[in-house]
């Protein structure tokens, strides 16, 4: 099964999403902010990145820009409540597959 790097600064939400993904058989690595997520990405080379946008130290969009410079093909999913058109467009510009806070929405 593919490995997933989950980056979310809300520990409760991070835990629930991590559990839900693991139930489906994914191997999940969890990071609590963008900077930690970037370090894990470089160490683990996950198959999929699931990241929040608003985080301490390094935000999700900036993280995606850095990841895209290193790896153009890794799928990125933004786990965000932000639904303004500009944010959605920015997410897709960075090669995100989808942007949603609901795990079932993007998991489907």
């Amino acid at each position: 099964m593919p490995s997933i790097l989950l980056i979310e600064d809300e520990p409760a939400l991070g835990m629930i999403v991590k559990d839900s993904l693991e139930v489906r058989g994914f191997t999940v690595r969890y990071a609590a902010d963008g900077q930690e997520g970037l370090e894990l990405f470089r160490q683990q080379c996950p198959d999929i990145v699931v990241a929040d946008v608003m985080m301490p130290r390094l935000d999700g969009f900036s993280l995606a820009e850095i990841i895209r410079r290193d790896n153009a093909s890794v799928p990125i999913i933004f786990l965000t409540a932000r639904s303004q058109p500009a944010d959605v467009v920015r997410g897709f510009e960075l090669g995100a597959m989808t942007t949603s806070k609901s795990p079932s929405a993007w998991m489907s």
Partner: protein
Amino acid sequence: MKRRIRSIFWLMAACILGINGFQAYWLYNTYQLTGQQFDRTTREALLAVVQRQLLGGARQLVQGEQKGVSRRVMLQEFNSDAGGQIERIVVSPQSAPPDTGRRVLRSDRLIITTRQPSGQRRAAADTAARTISRIIMNDWIGSRHVNLPQLLAAYQAELRLRDVQTAVKLDTLTVPVAEPMLAANVPNKPAPAGYPVQTPPIPLNPIRSVFVQASFPTPTPYILRQMGGLLAGSVALLGLTTGCFALMLSTILRQKKLSEVKNDFINNMTHELKTPLATVSAAVEAMQNFGALNDPQKAQTYLSISQKELQRLSDLVEKVLNSAVEERQQLTINPEPVRPAELVQELVARHQLQASKPVRFEVDIEPSESLSLDRLHVAGVINNLIDNAIKYSREQVTIAIKGRRDETGWRLTVQDDGIGIPRSYQAAVFDRFFRVPTGNLHPVKGFGLGLYYVRQVVERHGGHIDVRSEPNRGSEFSMWLPV
């Protein structure tokens, strides 16, 4: 957005530079033209004065010469056109030829006017002209004296008439030249010190090659006087244009900042409001679709998380609603005797227990000090200030809390060595929902209500609060309450 504003700035700068350049070019040209006009006016004035002087001298000469033979010849009107027509000759009444028409102008003069020349009239005119020329030439040959002061006075009067008010020096020069009537052939006399501008030499006595030349100081004051209106208008116009551009740019920048604050507020509120909902939603989904209900312990954890998140959401909604209500209804203050040192000590102890990073407190408040304050709200104020000092800091923080009484009140300062606040945002930190924009970074959770509440409480006590801060150096909040 930044690139667009930068483009606008550069376009504006180019525009202002262009306008300034054109104005400068135009003013320079006008300056040059006014300088040329000065040269022309002074030259023409000198020429006119010299001609008048020569004419006056000639008139006296002719009058004097003719007195011996009891004839008077007036030279005011002696013109001939290409056809040799003599239009008017002015002579004394005694000498009038018998066949000419006569018209008495003044009691002692006659004007003889002929429309068609006849042989006799032409002969009379030629004789008169030759006589006059001979008299003048004789005078020029014999004359050595030039009445320079008189000429200077006449020249100054002429300059005043022509609106040229400047110092002037007249000087004569004698230069033998082949054609004395062509002043262009005459070399200039060296200019006197401080009088660098000179007219060309004007022939005063062509027979003896005597010329007169006027010298002036630099005509800049004259030119500036002439261009005064233009200069003032240009400067005013340039100032107005530059001011308009500056105003426009500052408005754009202010709007941009407001837009940043607004976007940040929307993003922050979206994040803070939606995150608890998303967490609860994820927990419910996990129980419904991901088999969490099959694990009672996990289900219990998810329910507990949901409860906590719903409480968090409820607190947030309550805070926002309260702040809206507080704006309409003033906070109620219930003063009671409070020892600030004790109050601060309690809060410090609580924060030392709860802090998620190393915090060092330095408290300096007179223990015996007692004030009449609303304990609950003032505790809330100090709590918010300490909370902010911890939240907006790096890995560790030192917080200095000082309380001092002055003549009219009591001042409390809370100083930290945290991340500080940019100067442009310092005035806004006490506004409701304001948070210093951080873009997509979300280093500190909050709603922008803490310092708004602080200001409300302080103002309800009749005091005031302000902030001094420097990015990366720290902030100092200073609260003053009347006693």
